[in-house]
């Protein structure tokens, strides 16, 4: 065993000495290789963390949201609608039915859209509002301040700020403005008894699809939106952004592939002569291949590990300054949040496979070809 280890160490010593002879070229390759892994790993880590965040937060959203459609557009739910669902009786398994009140308001002061909401679960006193963190920040609001909004009817409404939502919830609440039902209806001149949409809670997750199908059958003008569809929407949004980033990076990936292939497969005359001499002094083909395997393994493993660690530090310790604008998007009221790290084992394995193995293969094939040729002709060529 010790003899085997000693032999491998000598092979490594030899290959490192050989690499050191072409120091600049090999260090350059290692640097570019590390940078490539860094860029790919940064994109993968960032989008995975965003996807996970969306999935974790939105798994608490309503199981079904029922909208009413008129001429292909989302319309208000009239008063009789809720009762109609109740009477039809296809709703066995539905725990809670709740009409929701929410809408959009464009604030010309900061040129941004707010989401106004009258939550059923939260008691907001009439004449007051609870502001989302980004709204409070952009308008400079603090508890006790008064703020006025001009409604779409032209009337001016003033509210006292009763509170702001916590910063920790900013990712879902940045632009929210919570107010009482009475204020909401007066502000938007919402007809009495009408709701924006209906949220349904279903106890058994296996029943959600059945309930949605029955609802769609009982109310042909309705559009049920399932929680799983919401989760899928977000997964696809971030997949798309990741794909966009990777498409832009593909030129760099191909450039590296050409560089690595050129470096690894195009044996220089010097390297060929080196192999010829090694064989002439008694090295076996297996030894030459082992030596080159160590070379490829050490270079690619170092590049992979260094690139991945640097990517992690960049994304989760420094807030991903390099890719954030593309991957997160932007808006006037942009939430400030820190991503919770999520590392996907499969993603790490895939990245490892697609960066380390091609390099090893590119190293191995030409060396095997050179190693099986006659030492005399290898030295002469």
């Amino acid at each position, binding site marked *: 065993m010790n003899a085997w280890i000693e032999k491998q*160490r000598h092979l490594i*010593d030899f290959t*490192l000495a050989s690499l050191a002879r072409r120091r600049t070229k090999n260090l350059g390759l290692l640097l570019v290789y590390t940078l490539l892994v860094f860029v790919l790993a940064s994109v993968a880590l960032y989008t995975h963390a965003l996807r996970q965040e*969306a999935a974790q937060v939105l798994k608490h959203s309503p199981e079904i949201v029922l909208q009413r459609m008129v001429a292909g557009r989302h319309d208000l739910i009239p008063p009789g609608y809720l009762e109609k669902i109740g009477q039809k009786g296809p709703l066995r398994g539905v725990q809670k039915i709740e009409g929701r009140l929410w809408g959009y308001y464009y604030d010309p002061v900061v040129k941004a859209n707010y989401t106004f909401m009258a939550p059923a679960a939260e008691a907001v006193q009439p004449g007051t509002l609870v502001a989302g963190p980004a709204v409070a920040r952009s308008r400079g609001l603090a508890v006790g301040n008064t703020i006025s909004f001009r409604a779409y009817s032209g009337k001016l409404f003033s509210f006292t700020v009763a509170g702001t939502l916590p910063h920790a919830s900013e990712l879902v609440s940045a632009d929210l403005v919570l107010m009482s039902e009475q204020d909401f209806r007066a502000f938007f001149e919402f007809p009495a008894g009408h709701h924006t949409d209906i949220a349904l809670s279903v106890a058994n997750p296996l029943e959600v699809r059945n309930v949605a199908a029955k609802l769609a059958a009982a109310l042909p003008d309705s559009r049920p939106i399932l929680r799983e569809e919401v989760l899928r929407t977000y997964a696809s949004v971030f997949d798309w952004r990741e794909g966009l980033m990777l498409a832009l990076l593909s030129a760099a990936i191909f450039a590296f592939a050409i560089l690595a292939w050129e470096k690894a497969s195009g044996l220089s005359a010097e390297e060929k002569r080196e192999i010829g001499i090694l064989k002439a002094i008694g090295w076996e083909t297996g030894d030459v291949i082992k030596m080159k395997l160590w070379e490829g393994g050490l270079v690619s493993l170092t590049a992979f590990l260094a690139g991945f660690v640097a990517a992690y530090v960049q994304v989760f310790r420094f807030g991903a300054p390099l890719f954030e604008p593309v991957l997160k998007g932007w808006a006037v009221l*942009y939430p400030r949040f820190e991503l919770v790290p*999520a590392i996907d084992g499969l993603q790490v394995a895939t990245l490892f496979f697609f960066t380390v193995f091609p390099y090893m293969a590119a190293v191995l094939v030409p060396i095997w070809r050179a190693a099986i040729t006659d030492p005399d002709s290898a030295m002469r060529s």
Partner: protein
Amino acid sequence: MSVRPSTLAFAIIGLAIAGFAAIFLDAAGLRARGAAELAARGALAARLGLTDLALFTEARYTRHPSQADLHSAFQDHPVALEHFPTGSLLPPPASLVSHHERLDRKAASPD
């Protein structure tokens, strides 16, 4: 006695592996620290029945993409182009990235 190149190589690889293992520990630590805030976000989403992330607030179909009309990209008229920047790579307007001078630290407040 000089250090053998293989010893140096093993030391570098060993360090890199230790760094790689450390990021998993660090991630676990950050996850544990952020768990309460994540739970708070989830609780707020459950309490208010929120369906979307507040990432892109410029239009109703970008603020609530999951609740938007079907074919929402064409909702203004049948061949309408996307006119909000979320779907593209336009840089944000200068007013979003420029910083104003902080006058409150320089100017003397009037009595």
